[in-house]
Each structure stands twice: as structure tokens, then as C-alpha cells.
């Protein structure tokens, strides 16, 4: 490919709420290592094949140093979640990353998340009761999808859920690649940093039963714990990560299952399929957002193409999850698919730290919805559903439902 050829713009614009852009299949087939132009005007390399995405995400040569001077700027003005200073305070690789990962990851084990199930179930039941009381049609995103993960992560971090509007705004300024001006993002980040800094100081004075108090109790870096700034950034990172991701996924999952109502009916009849249905929703989500960017510190080869040092690579997990070479009948949503080694949570040492939490939340929400509102249906045609624009994490603006 020469530089004169028309270069694909990334993110690839897509109007349909649930359908993948036609370009994915074309890229996987003919151009698995593609040149793309980002919103900033910078060039990057897009990967869409399952094997490539899986391999690169697990390869430490592909770093998260998106703040490098020659790394492509992801958003329109180069700010945001991937390039903020925040990202560079959590160690990117090696022993230090492993230490951080294990110190924080131990609070997100499958067993701990399973222990939260009863409380989550109660919360989901209450939120659904409230939605029903307000009358139909209701917005499942605002009524259930958004509040549930926010309450859960606030509780885990010991921050007051009453401050959730502020968290939502701070989180959005970090995750939205187009909506905010540089000054707005900087002001929001400074306010968020101050908030978390005060919160951690308060926890130091008066520890609670939350992850941040536990991380403080692990002591100084010399004692095996985290530094003050690492604590603050970890708290910010967990709060942002626990916000938009699962919140949007709950809405998308329910829409995918209701878009073809035989799927919903099958689950109502056989709730034992909830686990595999959740995994398939994660795989099938064609609106999962930007993907994961990586920065190359050394020349490397991917699928026979040499990538020079300084290349910014974008891994499209959503495109990879539709790869026919990796999944039989990849374009079909199969609620019993097993095994389902999708890449929605990434792969390798950096794969999502909160995935057991996300899975548990998705399973609980689905279980409670099927039980309490088996007659649930979309209140608008699928074609009328609108994507959230510009978010690093894809979502739908609203999810109107009846029951």
C-alpha cells in the first residue's frame, strides 16, 4: 500500500447499532495489517484478525506507552484515557507491573466476586422494581445498566454513591474521544485527582472495609504496598473502569438478546444458559468501542508485515471476535457457544483486571431480568437505537423497553 492510497479513518463510522461495519470482514480477509488515520490526523496500524490481536495483546514488545513523543494521538486533541499521565503511573510491564497487578487483582478474584452476588441480586431487583413502578416504556440503561455497576464499584472503593454524577462526568471526559475540549479534560482530571487524593487521605485517617483501605494497609512501596500517587491513580482507574464498561455492556447485552426475541425466550425457558449467553454477548458486541492501542519500542513483524519502531498499533478485539477462522459461524449469535475464547477483555498479562466482576454483574442482571420480567421486549425497532458517539467504550444512548 502506498501513502497516496485512500487511508481508512478510524474509528470506522457505523450507523447500525448492532451490526459490524462491512470493512471488518474485508480487512480481515485482504488487509489484516492496515494503515488507518485517527481523529487526531495521526497514522496507526489496525489489526482485525483474531490470531494477530490475541498475540499482540499478550506480547510485551507492544507496550502501553502511548505518551511516547512519536506515538499516535488517539483522540482529536491527543488527550484522554490512553494518553493521560495517569496511564504511565501504573507500571506497564515486568516485575513491577506483576506486583501491582497481584496486589490489586487479589480483590477481584472470582470467589470474592461470587460473594457479592447476593448483594448484587438484591440491588438489581430493587432497581427493576423502581423501573416498573415508574411505568413503561422504561430506559433500561438509565434504570439498571448504569446504576448497578456504579453502586457496586463505589461500594468496593468506599466512595459515596451520592457523588456518582461527578464520577460519571470525570469518567466521560477521560473516555470520550471527541466530545470535550482539552481545557475541559484537564480541569476534570485535576478535580478527579484532587477528589481521590482527599478520599485516600480520609481513608488513611479512618480505614473502612474497602479496597483502597486494604491497599493503604499494605504499606509503603518498601513494605510491598503502593506509593501515594499510585494509590490515587489506581483508585481513579478502578472507578473509571468500573463505570462505563459494564454499564454500557448491560444495555447492549439485553438489546442483542431482545433484537431476536427467540434468544430471550430460550433463556427464559432455560436459565442454565445464562453463563454462555453472557460470554456470547461479549463476543458478539459489534459496538465495543475503540479497541486497545499499543506502542512499539522495537521493530516487529505481524502476519508477515514488518512494523517499524514507533508504530502505534490498534487492536480491534470486536473485529477479531467476528473472525470466521477463530469462531465457527462467527456472524451467528449462539447462546450455547463453548468454549468461547473471545477477546472482549483483552488477552495476556494485561487482560481486564475486573473481568470476574464484570461477568458476575452481567450474569446477575440477566438472571434477575429473566426471572422478574420474562415478558421484556424492546420498545422501539432496533433500527432506531443510537450509538453513543466518540466513546472509547461503545454503548447505546438509551435502551427503551416494555414488559
Amino acid at each position, binding site marked *: 500500500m502506498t501513502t497516496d492510497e485512500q487511508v481508512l479513518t478510524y474509528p470506522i463510522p457505523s450507523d447500525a447499532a448492532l451490526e459490524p461495519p462491512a470493512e471488518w470482514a474485508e480487512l480481515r480477509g485482504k488487509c489484516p495489517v492496515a494503515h488507518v488515520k485517527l481523529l487526531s490526523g495521526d497514522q496507526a496500524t489496525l489489526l482485525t484478525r483474531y490470531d494477530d490481536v490475541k498475540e499482540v495483546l499478550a506480547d510485551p514488545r507492544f507496550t502501553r506507552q502511548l505518551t511516547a513523543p512519536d506515538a499516535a494521538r488517539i483522540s482529536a486533541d491527543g488527550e484522554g484515557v490512553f494518553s493521560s499521565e495517569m496511564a504511565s503511573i501504573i507500571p506497564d510491564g515486568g516485575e513491577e507491573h506483576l506486583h501491582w497487578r*497481584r496486589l490489586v*487483582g487479589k480483590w477481584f*478474584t*472470582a470467589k470474592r466476586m461470587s460473594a457479592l452476588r447476593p448483594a448484587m441480586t438484591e440491588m438489581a431487583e430493587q432497581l427493576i422494581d423502581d423501573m416498573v413502578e415508574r411505568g413503561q416504556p422504561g430506559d433500561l440503561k438509565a434504570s439498571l445498566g448504569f446504576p448497578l455497576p456504579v453502586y457496586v464499584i463505589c461500594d468496593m472503593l468506599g466512595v459515596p454513591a451520592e457523588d456518582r454524577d461527578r464520577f460519571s462526568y470525570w469518567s466521560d471526559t477521560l473516555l470520550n474521544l471527541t466530545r470535550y475540549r482539552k481545557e475541559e479534560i484537564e480541569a476534570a482530571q485535576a478535580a478527579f485527582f484532587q477528589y481521590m487524593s482527599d478520599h485516600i487521605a480520609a481513608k488513611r485517617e479512618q480505614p473502612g472495609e474497602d479496597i483502597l483501605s486494604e491497599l493503604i494497609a499494605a504499606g509503603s512501596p518498601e513494605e510491598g504496598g503502593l506509593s501515594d500517587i499510585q494509590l490515587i491513580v489506581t483508585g481513579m482507574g478502578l472507578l473509571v473502569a468500573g463505570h462505563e464498561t459494564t454499564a454500557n455492556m448491560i444495555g447492549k447485552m439485553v438489546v442483542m438478546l431482545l433484537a431476536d426475541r427467540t434468544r430471550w425466550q430460550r433463556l427464559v425457558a432455560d436459565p442454565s444458559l445464562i453463563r454462555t449467553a453472557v460470554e456470547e454477548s461479549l463476543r458478539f458486541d459489534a459496538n465495543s468501542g475503540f479497541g486497545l492501542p499499543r506502542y512499539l519500542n522495537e521493530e516487529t513483524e505481524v502476519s508477515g508485515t514488518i512494523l517499524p519502531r514507533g508504530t502505534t498499533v490498534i487492536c480491534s478485539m470486536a473485529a477479531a471476535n467476528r473472525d470466521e477462522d477463530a469462531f465457527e459461524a462467527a456472524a451467528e449469535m449462539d447462546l450455547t457457544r463453548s468454549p468461547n475464547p473471545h477477546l472482549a477483555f483483552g*488477552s*495476556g498479562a494485561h487482560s481486564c483486571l475486573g473481568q*470476574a466482576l464484570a461477568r458476575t454483574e452481567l450474569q446477575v442482571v440477566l438472571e434477575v431480568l429473566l426471572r422478574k420480567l420474562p415478558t421484556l421486549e424492546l420498545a422501539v425497532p432496533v433500527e432506531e437505537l443510537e450509538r453513543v458517539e466518540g466513546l472509547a467504550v461503545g454503548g447505546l444512548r438509551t435502551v427503551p423497553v416494555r414488559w
Partner: protein
Amino acid sequence: MKITVDEVKCCGAGQCVLIAPEVFDQRDEDGIVILLEPEPGEDQHALVREAAAVCPAAAIEVSDQA
């Protein structure tokens, strides 16, 4: 069936525990995998294979033996 796990590779995602809790667990102190049952009974084989296939760190190996 014989299972081995690689604690160094393990990233603590917990998928194996969610899928086959009778065979896998995670250490409380760092979230790393614990193999509860290196040679599980037949009723667990399908779940173990699924857990190995979806492990994001490819840290579970399953070998068949007579």
C-alpha cells in the same frame, strides 16, 4: 486427564474458577490460580477443557492419559 497450571503466566482473571470451581481456585493473597484437583473425574473434563481454552493467559495445560 492431567492438568498443569503455570503460576508465572497466570493473570488472575478467574475464568477457570467461574467455570470449574471444583477444580480451580485463586490464592487470597495475590489472585493466582490454585489447582485443587490435578486429575479430576470425568464429570469435570468438559468444564476443564473449556477453562483451559478460554484462559486469557494460556496458563492451563490439559493432557490426556490412559
